[in-house]
């Protein structure tokens, strides 16, 4: 209907040597289902990447199945689906571990705030408890060496570097 070059038209519309991905029937349905699964996994991976940001980076890369865009065959779609599923599983595991670590660090921070003298010189950053910014909590003695000898410990709160905040606002 649209192809005007007679050489091209019959080949595209009535090609009997179709490339494997474009065979029809049940395989068409199977490929549609795999594409649906790929879309769903891509959404899950996007959510994990977004949730992890900016605390840590989740590897969302899945090797390209083709150098150029084309309709993938069943096997290739399965490979993409499986690779995405593996990335989602890895990302979720990494996120869970990070959440557990941050929860443990928050508990440690509370204990340090309650009893600084029991956590001498301990330093917990905002990143360690999953908060943005580059500030930290640091258990230090009052008045330097005198406080150290007297056991006068306190938690000093650093609000972080002001420059990073300004840069972030600028960008």
């Amino acid at each position: 209907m649209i192809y005007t070059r007679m050489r091209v038209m019959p080949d595209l519309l009535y090609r009997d040597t179709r490339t494997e991905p474009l065979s029809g029937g049940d395989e068409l349905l199977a490929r549609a289902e795999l594409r649906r699964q790929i879309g769903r996994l891509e959404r899950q991976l996007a959510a994990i990447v977004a949730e992890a940001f900016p605390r840590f980076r989740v590897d969302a890369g899945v090797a390209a199945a083709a150098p150029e865009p084309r309709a993938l065959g069943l096997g290739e779609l399965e490979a993409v689906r499986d690779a995405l599923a593996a990335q989602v599983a890895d990302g979720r595991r990494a996120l869970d571990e990070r959440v557990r670590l941050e929860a443990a660090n928050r508990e440690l921070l509370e204990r340090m705030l309650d009893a600084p003298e029991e956590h001498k010189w301990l330093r917990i950053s905002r990143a360690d408890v999953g908060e943005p910014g580059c500030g930290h909590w640091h258990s230090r003695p009052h008045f330097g060496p005198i406080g150290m000898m007297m056991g006068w410990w306190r938690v000093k709160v650093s609000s972080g570097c002001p420059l990073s905040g300004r840069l972030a606002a600028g960008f």
Partner: protein
Amino acid sequence: MGSDPAPSDLGWEPAPEPGWVAPHVAAEFPGLAISSIVVDSRPGSTPEAVRRRLRDLSDRFYGAHAVRMRERPIPWAYRAFFRQIGLDPDRTRTPVEDLALERLREGAFKPHGLPADAVTVATIETGVALRLFDAEQLRGNLCVRDSAPGEVLAGRPGELTPGTLVIADDAAPAGLLFGATSEACAVTQGTRRIAVAAVQVSGVPQIAVDEALWMTAATLEAA
């Protein structure tokens, strides 16, 4: 409920021209579509109004936006489609993510002249993938199809692998679907009429496509 009014009914001139998708490709990718709009415009420097627009967009766009963008419906739809056609969207970036990355790298949406900046504005605002062609070099309607044996993309060495998804006119491939544009119909300094094409994939609403085309055309016409 009646059907949606056509863009021309809304006073959008020129109205987007729907292209077509080869039947066996459409069977594989329901929702894949292409439509285009032709504008009498020539490449040139970026007008002040567009520069201002780019600055405004830069001010609204941060690193967190770039990362979270993939969760939004339209960027996600293109990412998923890229996976489905064998591309890794973290290497071969979707158009909107490519621009987002450039924004982070450069610190702003830098002006590159028209028509590229018109596409940047529309892509960032809508997320829709847009392509530019020299309208006078195109023959007939644009379509999305798979390449036939022996076909080439002008300006690229070697033949296309049969089955490569391309945007084509009635005569030959005009560009890879999400990739290089044929030298034969690329916009050059000599271009006088520009065809702006939007590639729609499943999950991208028609209204966003129409808006992207209209926004690009309006920017080019105003220049």
